[in-house]
């Protein structure tokens, strides 16, 4: 009560040219007397504009607005375009030309479909023998394509190639354990399509892969060639079936096991596609991709659990737009999908 300062008799006079009628009495201004520094300051709402006028420094609008910038960074390209359109600006366009890579194709040509349950049946059993027979029927096309490879590469031997291909694959997998160090060597062993696929999400993780033994000798199951842009520019792709005993483990940044185990060995049948740029005099065979058949069971999930994300339901577009609005307003549906 006593600490309140009453300055009712003081009158503040302002330049009437700028603020006509700005003649106020300070009688109901309350003062904060908690700290000595604040005590002499006027905190009344009514004089806020006048107090602001005392500041001669840089105008507020010149201050960089980082909040706005942060929001704009989160925008999707479509939203960005919309935002720029509002201001009448041209959409963002870069002068950079997209590079074209012709040292490898971007796809697996005419993908090989592995027989169902491959690797589980012995070739002596009835089911296994049937599979072998079926495969034999499919080989016609591959022989035609093989002849084409031999036009460019006379020394190409299918049996020898299967063995070298397996060695190449094992080396590439071993090098994957330290991508940063072995980047150059990996580019020699993998095509430009395969490299990003193999190294995806491996940064800041520890990847451990070990080859134990070859259960079955590797064999070539499929051969295809294709030209790109011109007839002379030829590419060859060879699918090799490998049956390897191996261990795999992935550790996270803190050395905690995320996936697999180093102690459990597994027999895996793998179909690896190798590619060579035939027209290139110095072209080499490189790992190009892996075929994962549709019938294969889903691989083991990672050890940790995840929280299910909640997505908004996508309302299907109907002709009657008014009907749709009513539904979305009333129900506001949200359906959780993984």
């Amino acid at each position, binding site marked *: 009560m006593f600490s309140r300062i009453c300055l009712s008799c003081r009158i503040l006079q302002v330049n009437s040219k700028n603020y006509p009628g700005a003649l106020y009495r300070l009688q109901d201004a309350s003062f904060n007397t908690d700290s000595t520094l604040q005590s002499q300051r006027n905190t009344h709402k009514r004089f806020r504009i006048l107090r602001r006028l*005392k*500041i*001669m*420094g*840089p*105008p507020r609008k*010149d*201050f*960089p*607005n*980082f*909040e706005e*910038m942060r929001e704009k960074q989160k925008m999707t390209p479509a939203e960005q375009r919309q935002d720029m359109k509002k201001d009448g600006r041209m959409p963002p366009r870069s002068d950079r030309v997209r590079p074209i890579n012709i040292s490898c194709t971007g796809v697996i040509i005419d993908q090989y479909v592995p027989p169902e349950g491959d690797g589980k049946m012995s070739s002596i059993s009835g089911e296994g023998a049937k599979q072998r027979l079926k495969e034999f029927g499919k080989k016609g096309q591959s022989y035609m394509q093989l002849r084409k490879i031999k036009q460019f590469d006379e020394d190409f031997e299918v049996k020898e190639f299967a063995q070298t291909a397996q060695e190449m694959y094992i080396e590439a997998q071993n090098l994957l354990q330290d991508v940063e160090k072995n980047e150059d060597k990996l580019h020699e062993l993998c095509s430009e399509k395969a490299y990003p696929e193999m190294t995806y999400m491996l940064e*800041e*993780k*520890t990847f*451990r892969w070990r080859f134990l033994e070859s259960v079955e000798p590797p064999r070539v199951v499929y051969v295809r060639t294709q030209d790109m842009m011109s007839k002379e520019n030829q590419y060859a792709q060879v699918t090799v079936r490998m049956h390897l005993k191996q261990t795999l*483990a992935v*550790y*996270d*940044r*803190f*050395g*905690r*096991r*995320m996936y697999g185990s180093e102690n459990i060995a597994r027999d895996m049948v793998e179909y690896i596609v190798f590619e060579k740029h035939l027209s290139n005099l110095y072209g080499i065979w490189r790992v190009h991709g892996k075929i994962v058949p549709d019938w294969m069971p889903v691989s083991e999930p990672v050890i*940790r*659990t995840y*929280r299910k994300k909640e997505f908004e339901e996508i309302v299907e577009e109907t002709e009657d737009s008014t009907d749709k609005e009513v539904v979305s307003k009333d129900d506001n549906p949200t359906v959780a999908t993984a």
Partner: protein
Amino acid sequence: MAVKISKMCWNVLSTHPRAVLRQVPKCSSMAAVSLQPQCSAPSLTSILASRDIHTCTTLHKQNMFDPKFKYLKYNKIVYPPQEEGEPRRPAEVTYVRSNIKYSPDKLWYMAIMIRGMSIDEALKQLSFHKKKGAMFIREALLEAQEEAVSKHNVEYKSNLWIEDSNVGKAFHIKGIRRHARMRYGFIQFKYCHYFVRLREGKPPKHYLAPPETGHQKMKNTLQEHRNKRVFGGL
């Protein structure tokens, strides 16, 4: 002020020196532009614009709009795989909310308040806090939590505690304020950074040193008395 801002914008063009060494075209083009009117002959220009020499003067300055923090390098550390039976190594996530339009001096109170709290407790305390700065910290914590779960293999988002919570000074703008009798004063419009380190697990019982028990206090006091020496005495 307009001059000041434009100078700052100029810094956007130049980035960190190490980054510039890699982005050669950026640097060389700037050098070429600035030097072309002076010497049209390609000799000097081409030498200066070559790969490893940069001719920009503001290279050492940090980009205000995209600051690089050493603090975030903790997120790049990769630990070796753990042996079986070893206690599980708790995850550590650092996060920086940069360039907040708020005074670092004021934000500091909220920053130290949440040290050693579990993340849920900190979020709760901040949401009831009166000051505006609490909102910034709360947002930063939520973002850090999200990052921990999505990027750093933290399984449960509530299983985190605040190991480190600090405030840093960002750039300040100088302003002038009119006083009575032809006098003036300077004001600073301040920006700040907020740094937080989250650690997986439950918070420790005592974030700081544990309080002394009665016995310890008594011991200390006695020791203090015993340490007394009469000046000039034996």
